[in-house]
C-alpha cells in the first residue's frame, strides 16, 4: 500500500536530473513513443493504476498492475496496429508540477509530482492526479522501478485508458 498523505519533508530541492527524468518520461508517454517508453523500465518494474488511493494490489483489483512482462505485452499490443482503442492514438499533453522527493534509500529514490493531462480522441478528456515514481540509479543511468498513478477519480467510473498514463 502506498501512503499518499504522508507529508514527508522534501529532501532539499528536487535535483534537476530527477525533474528532467520525470518530464522526459511524460514526454515519451504524451507522444506515444512506445519503445522508448518501454526502455525506461527496470526488469522488476511495476506500472500501477489503483482503483482508489489506499488499495492493496495483492487483494484488490487495480485498473493496471503490470509487471515488466505485462508492460511489454501492453506495448506489443499498442504497436500491433490493431489496438482499436488507440487507433488513431490519443493526442496528449500533460503538465507536471509540485515535484517532491519523498525518500532516498541508497540507489533508490522515491519522487512525486502532480499532473494534469489533456487527452484528445473524438473528444478531449481531462485526467488529473498524482504520480509516484520509484527510480533506481544504475551504472547506465536512472531506471524506472515503479510508477503509480493516483487518479483523482479512481473510485468513480473512468473512461478508457488504452494510452500510456
Amino acid at each position, binding site marked *: 500500500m502506498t501512503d499518499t498523505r504522508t507529508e514527508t519533508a522534501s529532501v532539499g530541492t528536487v535535483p534537476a536530473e530527477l525533474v528532467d527524468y520525470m518530464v522526459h518520461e511524460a514526454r515519451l508517454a504524451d507522444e506515444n513513443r512506445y519503445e522508448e517508453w518501454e526502455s525506461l523500465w527496470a526488469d522488476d518494474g511495476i506500472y500501477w493504476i489503483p482503483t482508489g488511493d489506499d488499495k492493496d494490489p495483492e*487483494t484488490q*483489483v487495480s*485498473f493496471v*498492475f503490470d509487471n515488466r512482462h505485462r508492460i511489454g*505485452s*501492453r506495448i506489443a499490443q499498442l504497436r500491433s496496429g*490493431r*489496438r482499436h482503442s488507440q487507433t488513431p492514438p490519443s493526442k496528449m499533453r500533460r503538465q507536471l508540477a509540485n515535484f517532491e522527493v519523498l525518500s532516498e534509500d541508497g540507489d533508490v529514490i522515491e519522487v512525486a509530482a502532480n499532473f494534469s493531462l489533456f487527452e484528445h480522441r*473524438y473528444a478531449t478528456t481531462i485526467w488529473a492526479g498524482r504520480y509516484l515514481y520509484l527510480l533506481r540509479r544504475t551504472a547506465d543511468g536512472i531506471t524506472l522501478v515503479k510508477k503509480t498513478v493516483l487518479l483523482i477519480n479512481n473510485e468513480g467510473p*473512468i473512461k478508457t485508458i488504452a494510452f500510456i498514463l
Partner: protein
Amino acid sequence: MTIRLETERLVADDVDYDQLILRDRVHGSLYTDPAIFDKEMRDIYENQWVFVAHESEIKEPGDYVRRRIGTQPLIVARGKDLKVRVLLNRCTHRANMLCQSDAGNATLFRCSFHGWTFSNDGRLQGVSFRGGYEQELSELRAELGLAEAAQVGTYGGFVFANLTGDAGDLEEYLGNAKGAIDRLVQLSPEGGIDLSAGWMKHDNNANWKVVNEVQVDGYHPLFVHESLYKAVKPAKVDYSSDELRVAVRDLGGGHSEVDYSREYQNQDREFIWFSSIPRTRVPNYVEAMEALHGPEKTHEILVDGPPHTFIWPNLFLAEMQVMFVEPLAVERTIQYTAPIKLLGAEEMSARIIRQTEGAMGPAGFLIADDAEMGERNQIGLHAQEPEWVLFARGFESETVEERGITSYDRTSETSQRGMWQHYRTLMTEKTND
C-alpha cells in the same frame, strides 16, 4: 413505503415495438431515442428483477453499498436482522440524497439537509425540531419511511431486486440462467464466491444494450481482439477453426450465453479457462474439490469451467469475473467488473485479480477495445440509413436444446436475437394497460 410508477411521465408507449423489432433485425432508434430509454427504465429495470449487489459485499449487519436500478439511486443495506433491503436513496423530507459513500457500515443514515435520521431498515427515526408539524412524530414516522424495493431475492449470493413487486418469483425469472450461477458456485469447494476485491468502473458512451450485446457475441473476437491474439498471446480456443465446438445459446427470458464446455470436453483438458495452469499450481484447491466431489466429478467441473452467461437485463457472469451495467442515459452506461474469489480456493485469488486487470476494465487488453466498438457503434447509429441493425446470422445452424436455442456456429447472432425477442415482449406488455 411502496413505489408507484408514474406511467404518465413517458411518451414512448405509442411506439409500435412490433414494427421496430423483427425476427432478424432491429431498428436503430432503439439505441438512440431518449423516450424509448425512459420506457425501458420503467418496463425493464423498474418492473423486472435486476441485479443490485452480491452478498459478499454486505456481509455484516450495517454493511451497505450504493447502486442504481435504472437511473434511480439506491442503498442496498443489511439490517441488524440480517435482512438485505434495497432502499431508495432519497430523503422523504425534501428529496436530498441520503447516503453519499459508495460503501460502508451504518446503522443510521442522517440527512445532511435538515438532519432527519433513518435506520438502515428504512424506518424514519428522528425529525429535527419535531414540533413544527401538525402530526405527531409517530404519525410522521409511520408515513415517511424510505421507499423500498418491493421484492429482494438472492440466488447463489447474487442479490436481485424489483422495485414494484410485479416481477414474480426470482428463480422462475432466472429460468435456464440459474444453472449458470450453479456452475459458477460449484467451482468453489465451499460453494460460494466473494467479490471483496472490488469493482473497476468503466464509463462508456454507449447504450446499455450495445454494451450487453458484445458480451455474448461469438462473431467479433477475431476482429476486435486481433491485437491481443497476434501480438501478445493466442486466444484460449482457436476462433478461426471450423472444428471449434463453441456454442451460442438463447436461454430464454433475455438470458443468453457463449458455451465453451463442449469444446473443453472435446479437448478433455482442465483449466483451459484459467490460462491452462497444471493441477500442481493449485494442489490444495484440487484436493478440496476431490474430497467434496470425488475425482471423476472434479475432473468434469475443472474441464467445464465457469459460465460465460448474460443474465437479463444487467448481469454478466464473465467466467472469472462478475460484470454488470448501470444505464445512466440513452447513450451512457457504466460497466462494473469485479474479479471472483472462489471461497476455499485462495491459491487462485491473486492470479484471478491479475487476470481480470489484464483482460477487463478501462485499460484491459480485451474490454478497452470492446468499449471502443460500443462507442463507434453509437456514433454509427446516428446515420439514419440503413435504418436497421442486422442480427440475421446463423438461423439455419440453430437447434432447440433443453437449455435453449443453440448454435454450434459461434458466429450466429442467436444470443442477441434472444435478448431482442424478450425485449419486445417487455416493451409491448405494458403499452396497452
